[in-house]
């Protein structure tokens, strides 16, 4: 089962290596990973989507907490979670196909970020399954390149994870 784990860490060199190393050597699978600085610039937030049963999840949390640079760890329940991922997709696009792609972009609320004689790059921020559908819609035009960020997540409502 997939879990979304939010980790607040000291914004120090080498922290990411410590965390990814921990996942690797203890055999925890990382599905996606995203890192960025928080409202407090001495703190970074790492959002990891990981795979595992309850035992694995408990061990992941406990082992993460043992790392000195880790300030807080929280696994957020799916229904309390607002998740986003960003994708940039470059597709083949002849002059005749432009209108079709523009209407797909309108319907899916994607942005057209770049255009050339025979290609178009679309940008969409949404949750994972929405992005998967979006990618399928574009596949018939010939996908040249897909770039996806990892999932980032925030709790719904006023609750927040802070140090």
């Amino acid at each position: 089962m997939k879990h979304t784990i939010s980790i607040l860490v000291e914004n120090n060199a080498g922290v990411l290596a410590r965390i990814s190393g921990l996942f690797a050597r203890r055999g925890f699978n990382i599905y996606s990973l995203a890192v960025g600085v928080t409202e407090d610039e001495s703190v970074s937030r790492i959002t990891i989507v990981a795979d595992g049963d309850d035992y694995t999840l408990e061990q992941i949390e406990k082992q993460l907490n043992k790392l000195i640079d880790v300030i807080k760890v929280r696994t957020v329940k799916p229904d309390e979670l607002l998740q986003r991922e960003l994708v940039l997709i470059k597709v083949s696009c002849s002059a005749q196909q432009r209108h079709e792609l523009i209407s797909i972009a309108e319907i899916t609320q994607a942005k057209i970020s770049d255009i050339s004689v025979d290609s178009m790059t679309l940008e969409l921020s949404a949750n994972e399954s929405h992005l998967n559908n979006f990618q399928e819609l574009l596949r018939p035009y010939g996908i040249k390149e897909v770039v996806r960020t990892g999932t980032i997540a925030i709790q719904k409502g006023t609750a927040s994870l802070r140090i």
Partner: protein
Amino acid sequence: MQVSKERVTVARAMVLALEHEGIKHIFGYPGAAICPFFDELIKSDIQNILVRHEANSGHAASGYARVTGKPAVCAATSGPGATNLITAIATAHMDSVPMIAITGQVLSSQLGRDAFQEADITGAAEPFVKHSFLVKNPNDIGEVIKKAFYIASTGRQGPVLIDVPMDIQKMEIEFEYPEKVEIRSYKPSFFGNKLQIKKAAEALKNSKKPLICAGGGILSSGACEQLKILSEKCDIPVIVTMMGIGSIPTNHKNYYGMLGIFGRKIANQALNACDLLIVLGARMSDRAVTTLASFDDTTVIHIDVDPAEIGKNAPVNIPIVGDVKTILEQFIAEVEPMTHDEWQSGLFINKTDFEAKANTFQSDYVSPKLMIKSICKALPQKRVICADVGSNQIWTANNIEIGEEGKFITSGGMGTMGFSFPAAIGAKCADKDAEVVAICGDGSFQMSFMELATAVQHGINVKIVVFVNNKLGMVREYQTNNYAGRHTMVDLSGSPDFLKLAEAYGINGETVSKNEQIVSAVENMVNANEPYLLQVIVDKNEKSLIV
């Protein structure tokens, strides 16, 4: 009064910081990258012990820390010096030993360029350290060392690595050692949850067959007295893990020995028969609990400072996280005195039965059991017995006699061969009044016998017992049992005469080849006021576990 800052080099600041921390000895090996630091040691009262291999500087620090209970320091140069330290760091990590490892590093301008003797040691050692620092800003040095000592010595203790580029060591800074440090992300639990302690007391009240399993956590939190009080007040038998040996005197009436595949049968029988298991500062490793049939009918209370150990290897009903000593004090206050006559007397019959059966010895070779027992008889109570890894470790663990003033030191988790002799050197430096004996096999001793020179050079009076059968006995036994007796890579032909080897270093000793020679040889060893080596001839077919 205003405390003024001193203008000093980082290397000098490192020495001042270690003096502040009460460090009296450093075990190390030099190289260009650590020279600025070693150069400053000349002006200090800190005694520097030159070892003959970097790994052994770490093992010596381990032995030292396990005697004092405080962090001990080892130091090495960059590159191979640092990578050689890794095994010792990993050994300390597995056994939760507080250690500060200091390594020199290439010039900071050369970092990442594969310079001569460059190794990414903070990266390489990451899985084996509690924490590590690569010092890039010279002004950080005081805080880094303060944090290192704080992290190594609190919570679940462990090794901390400090890597300092040589140009940083030479830089001048305004230095003042911080009185204390605050790490917002590191707050080890201390007190146990009161509700959980009440629950545990209730479970003990309802139990007819309670059992305590004491681990290394008892020793590292200094809870031996509390363990004894609980065991006596509530009449609870005690078994130990290998790391827990010495947490209760081995002659205590409630002591039933070490559990596990290489443990005593009675300890494992008690484990399988109990209805309540109180695990204290132990992690229920694979070697300890494989003999366990099932925990289904047993209530398990697990008290440990590391929350990650709770439920990791065995299911737990009542977890309590915090310092074992503090929690035991809370727990003892919560329970009424009780007796378990029926349970205890059943176990006791098995215990005396075992003692009687196991005390018969064959005469062609020296009996390791008789040897260990005789050493323990001859040693003063203030003793440190260091066992290596292999059959010698199991022989020692199961036959050692140790009281409140004694210590047993071995590489429990990592099973690092060659550990005992350098650890004994460290232990003797930590406590000059204790009689320190390293017990080795002929395999493990050949992994660290170069430290004979260290003992001679620094006048460190450790005693060495080498069990000789010209075989890697424990692996050979494993091959006998699991590979239809096909023995590969376990023959130690070509090994030296260990007496001649000792003699080459100016160390006296004698050979023990018959049981009848044990008593006088051990007496000579204990009476020698300098290092002394006993070469003890044992049967190659001697089993690790003497049942």
